[in-house]
């Protein structure tokens, strides 16, 4: 895990304000209230669990520091229902999968971050598009 030096952090803070202004989509102000725009983090770790819950999913990862110490982090994503409708399910992100996360750390300093970018080690975005199996796994009730 690397912390971005404070000069860059200030720049990020500025960018953050700009990106918030052009991203009205995420109307929840919850994220801004939980995370510190001055504490950008980059995490590389191994998935131990993914909570497919609402209002937001949580991906738990174990991050191994250069000194060998392992820290557990929780990464906040979007609502799982969107992913379920695209054909993903609880088996789509397996325990042991390596992922990389860019986000901001929780205001209270705990090991939580929002997942602004969540990718595989090669930089490919997680849960992009659909699962490739086509429409959601089930035909859906009410047909």
């Amino acid at each position: 895990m690397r912390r971005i030096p404070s000069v860059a952090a200030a720049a990020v803070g500025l960018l953050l304000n700009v990106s918030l202004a052009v991203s009205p989509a995420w109307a929840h102000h919850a994220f801004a209230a939980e995370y510190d725009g001055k504490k950008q983090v980059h995490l590389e770790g191994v998935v131990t669990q993914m909570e497919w819950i609402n209002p937001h999913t949580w991906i738990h990862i174990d991050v191994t520091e250069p000194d060998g110490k392992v820290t557990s982090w929780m990464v906040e994503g979007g609502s799982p229902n969107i992913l379920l409708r695209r054909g993903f399910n609880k088996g789509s992100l397996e325990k042991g999968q390596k992922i990389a996360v860019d986000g901001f750390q929780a205001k209270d300093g705990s090991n939580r971050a929002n997942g602004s970018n969540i990718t595989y080690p090669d930089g490919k975005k997680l849960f992009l598009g659909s699962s490739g199996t086509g429409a959601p796994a089930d035909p859906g009730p009410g047909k």
Partner: protein
Amino acid sequence: MRKSLTLFSTAAAAVVCISLTLTPGKAQAPAAPAKAVAKAVAKGPRMPDGRPNLNGVWEYIGTANWDIQDHSPAPGPMWQLGAIGAIPAGQGVVEGNEIPYKPAALEKKKQNKASAPAEDPEAKCYMPGIPRATYMPFPFQIIQSNKDILMAYEYASANRLINMGKPIEAGSDTWMGTSNGHWEGDTLVVDVTGLNGLAWFDRAGNWASDKVHVVERYKRRSNDVMDYEATIDDPSVFTRPWKISLPLYKRAEKNAQILEFKCVEFAEELLYGKYKKQPTK
């Protein structure tokens, strides 16, 4: 003369009949008979497709939500409520009255019980899961369509749709599970998977994991009573499957309906109180 009278009266009768059936007024002359049909179906024992009609507002009467096993009366968790908060005696709803926990799982049940009521998901206003939703002290309504069956529970606005078509697999684990139903004769059999293992069976801390597989059976015993069974199968927690069985009663008020019990507000102090801004001294 007789002939003409007969003809006249027949004609007159015909005119009267026609005018009666074609009475003007509300636009839905075609819909009025439909309303009567719907009403007849609603009250009848069978749906037009011949299946038992489970539509209605149902509720369990008993103390299963306190403890699904036999229990004596006992003081409640808060003496401040006096007898109001005390636990009534109850005849258990578990067949054989034994819940076949594995030893470690029994320890967890005891821990749950010791942590109650604060850690009881019911106290937190979390959805009760299946089967607990069925025997909460709140009514629920069954809306049985010509396809799927909807169950709407008053407690915490919990609800679930029982898919009666081709079975669906649970994409993720949820509080109310993924329900696939089919008929076996006059019994509605509901297969529930994808439960998240976080709900309890009762306030006594009985529990199962997210591997649990619940099979429910609903069978009308009479117009106003329905027999309910739930078989619980979770080899990671229990040494064998076991069964809950209890009657459900149709709410008989003329205006029976489920009301709203959105209890989150009642649980906020319990959950978040210690993180609120404390008043400065």
